[in-house]
């Protein structure tokens, strides 16, 4: 299992993502100006402030050469995980539905949140039990998930709402407490909280590992 973690100017969580993925497989960094996915089985678009968040978070990064390759990889069914800024990039790229808007509290907020696993049958949550709560950090200023109501209805019916903030933990004003969604095919997943920062007991929780373990299981054809 080989993960590729994108690195843009302004990324800041790519090394943590590489270390987290490295606990379940091999993980390499992929520079945004390159076009070679290096035979990776899964791609992670990491957190940070790609291109300084100019214009809108994720708006410029989606046009980088490497993202063009990632879009083609995703269209072919490849596993793509977007975390925080990576989620924003995937929404801007049209790989995921919806948009991330400024938090209703108007603050950059950094805190531990509990994530409820709504759909445990995606390639990103196979290792989780339905309804399981994962304790992971969240840290962002623009993480308010938005999509039109009728679209969210359809996404909920199709199992595309993968994780929600547990009651009381949705600090950013996201529609229906949504923390992470997948595409219709289920091979692209984005979430605002950071599973890659919760993989070592030293930092309080190892729940984030479940996401990476799930991806490894899915890539190796093991169904939970």
């Amino acid at each position, binding site marked *: 299992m080989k993960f590729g973690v994108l690195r843009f100017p302004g990324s800041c969580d790519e090394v943590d993502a590489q270390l987290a993925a490295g606990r379940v497989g091999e993980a390499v960094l992929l520079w945004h100006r390159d076009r070679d996915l290096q035979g990776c089985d899964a791609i992670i678009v990491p957190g940070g402030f790609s291109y300084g968040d100019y*214009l*809108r978070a994720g*708006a410029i990064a989606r*046009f980088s050469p490497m993202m063009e390759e990632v879009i083609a990889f995703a269209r072919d069914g490849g596993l793509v995980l977007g975390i925080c800024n990576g989620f924003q990039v995937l929404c*801007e790229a049209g790989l995921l539905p*919806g*948009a991330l*808007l*400024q*938090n*209703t*509290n*108007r603050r950059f907020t950094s805190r531990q949140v509990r994530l409820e696993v709504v759909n445990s049958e995606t390639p990103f949550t196979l290792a989780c039990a339905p309804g399981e709560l994962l304790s992971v950090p969240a840290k962002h200023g623009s993480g*308010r998930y*938005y*999509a039109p109501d009728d679209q969210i209805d359809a996404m909920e019916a199709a199992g595309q709402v993968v994780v929600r903030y547990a009651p009381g933990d949705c600090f950013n*004003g996201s529609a229906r407490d949504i923390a992470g969604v997948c595409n219709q095919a289920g091979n692209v997943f984005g979430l605002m909280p950071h599973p890659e920062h919760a993989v070592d007991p030293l930092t309080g929780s190892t729940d984030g590992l479940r996401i990476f373990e799930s991806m490894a299981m899915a890539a190796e054809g093991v169904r939970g």
Partner: protein
Amino acid sequence: MRVRVLVRPKAGILDPQGVAVEQALPALGFGGVTDVRIGRLIELEVDDPAQVDEMCRKLLANPLVEDYEVQLLDGAAGTAS
């Protein structure tokens, strides 16, 4: 040609910046202010103004959450979307 693009949050979408300004004005003694919305103003020099609409849809605005309006500053009428 000089072109101005105005980008606004779509109606019905909460604009936290607008709310903050709306709440700040009364503190300065300005009453009677409601529905403050904050957007973005982009000015560009373009050879072909016909391309600006596509620029807006692909990059300058996010059509899911923002409306945009294109104004041609050299006298011709603008278009809104």
